[in-house]
């Protein structure tokens, strides 16, 4: 109850401040939209299905892109963690590549894949692949050796060893990396969509800009934040809670 009250108080104050600033008309409405203007845009956007379509398209892309990242990243991370040569060579490259914003791949992606969905997916994968790889590598190293030995001892080998032992054993150590990878994937997607007519949320946001409709821009911004938060709060939180319950870890 207390927590809910604090939330209401905080967001109420924020909304009140916003309303006040808008009411004072320091800036013209096309520069500084009012809360109800944004609410109207949100309503209209859902009403004419623009937002539903945009959400569906964007979610589909991010799920595919992130999915590819997770699979590739786990293989890569496992390879780097278990091979000394790869670790010495590729390990450093991976870390340095992480300082590159994934949208820098956009020009190359356009040339390689053409002006289509694959170019966007490529940018999304490049955005989140490194986080997942580094998380997996780290998780594999942090994971107590004894699990691998016990697994082999009980007759697990090859893919079975990876799937039934190494992967679940390293999950608690990679879940934060997976979460970070998700955040990167989501940001990369929106950025890429803003650069190209793509039906996604990023494009709807740019449409608002082109029409000089800041209410629409803010409405989409709120949608992007909300979706990112929901996935983080629902999918990853429940995954973490599940792991904590199984392993008997206390929440940090």
């Amino acid at each position: 109850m207390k927590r809910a009250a604090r939330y209401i108080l905080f967001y109420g104050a924020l909304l009140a401040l916003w309303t006040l600033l808008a009411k004072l008309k320091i800036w013209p409405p096309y520069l500084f939209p009012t809360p109800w203007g944004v609410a109207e845009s949100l309503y209209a956007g859902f009403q004419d299905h623009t937002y539903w379509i945009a959400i569906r398209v964007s979610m589909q892309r991010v799920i595919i892109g992130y999915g590819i990242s997770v699979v590739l990243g786990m293989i890569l991370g496992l390879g780097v963690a278990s091979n000394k040569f790869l670790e010495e060579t590729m390990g450093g490259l991976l870390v340095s590549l992480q300082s590159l914003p994934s949208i820098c791949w956009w020009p190359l992606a356009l040339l390689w894949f053409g002006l289509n969905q694959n170019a966007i997916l490529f940018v999304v994968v490049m955005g989140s692949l490194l986080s997942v790889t580094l998380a997996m590598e780290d998780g594999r190293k942090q994971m107590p050796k004894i699990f691998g030995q016990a697994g082999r001892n009980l007759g697990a080998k090859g893919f079975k060893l990876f799937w039934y032992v190494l992967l679940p054993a390293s999950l608690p150590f990679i879940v934060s990396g997976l979460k970070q990878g998700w955040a990167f994937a989501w940001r990369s997607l929106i950025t890429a969509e803003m650069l190209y007519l793509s039906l996604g949320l990023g494009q709807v946001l740019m449409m608002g800009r082109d029409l000089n409709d800041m209410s629409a821009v803010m409405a989409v911004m709120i949608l992007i934040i909300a979706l990112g938060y929901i996935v983080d709060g629902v999918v990853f939180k429940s995954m973490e809670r599940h792991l904590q319950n199984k392993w008997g870890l206390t929440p940090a």
Partner: protein
Amino acid sequence: MSTNAQSVRGFPVPVSPRMPTRGVKLGPVSVDHVERDLSTRVSKVGLSDICLSYRTQAGERLLALDHINLQGRAGEFVCVVGPSGCGKSTLLHLIAGLHPQTSGQILIDGNPVQGPGTDRILIFQEHGLFPWLTVAQNVEFGMKMKGLPKAEREEKMRHYLRLVHLGKFEKSYIHQLSGGMRQRVAIARALATEPDVLLMDEPFAALDAQTRDLLHDELERIWSETGRTIIFVTHNVREAVRLGDRVVLLTFRPGRVKSEFPVSLPRPRSLEDPEVALAAREVLDELRDEINQSLEAEYKVGIKPHIEPGDEQ
């Protein structure tokens, strides 16, 4: 759990060559003597001239195990004792096939060991269970890897959990169990793959004395019920004498077999039996002597050997 202890104490002891009804035979004896004693039994585990050396980070070549020769007969309970760092745990890992030896041969039923196999299951000191699985799933794990059908797995899982008196904990996760219960799950999980040989790497070292006493009783009972060959590594001499048909003493680095002590005390035994204490004393004397020698040789000073003689009252 206390009721279990009662029934275990009263467990009827089958009369077998493994369990002579009386008589204390002690002192280092030649290998010949041991072989004659157990000559009716088939060799289950055979280690011949096992050497293991590895390179340290400084680049030196270090000999960890030096020409180990050891026979474990079918159904025999062999305890291996030695100071920490003598390579006794490593020896178990070699038998389990988790690491290759540098030279020598390990035979199981006459066949050389090549990698891990479910005919030998290793029970670790701790943390060997999978925390992401329930107790039942842990016990079923080996059978699942073997590809056994679900119904059969469940039946065996129940059987072995009952054997270690944990029938009610199928659905628990590992972190919800006490240390003693965890090791019993580990024993059930090992037995469920129906190995011929159980390799136990100081499985009770991290437990409190009461729990350990109880598990000694349970292990002795399970061993006599299932007839498995057990190779049990410990630094606790009293524990070794309490459990083993034979105690094999390893030297400090490099690990060599120093001597073997057949233990023909009647079963079931107890850690508090004066005979056990007496026998442990003899093994301990030789062990301490050995450690002092090797330490003096290495450091040229008499450092107190790092061994735990067990619960000597």
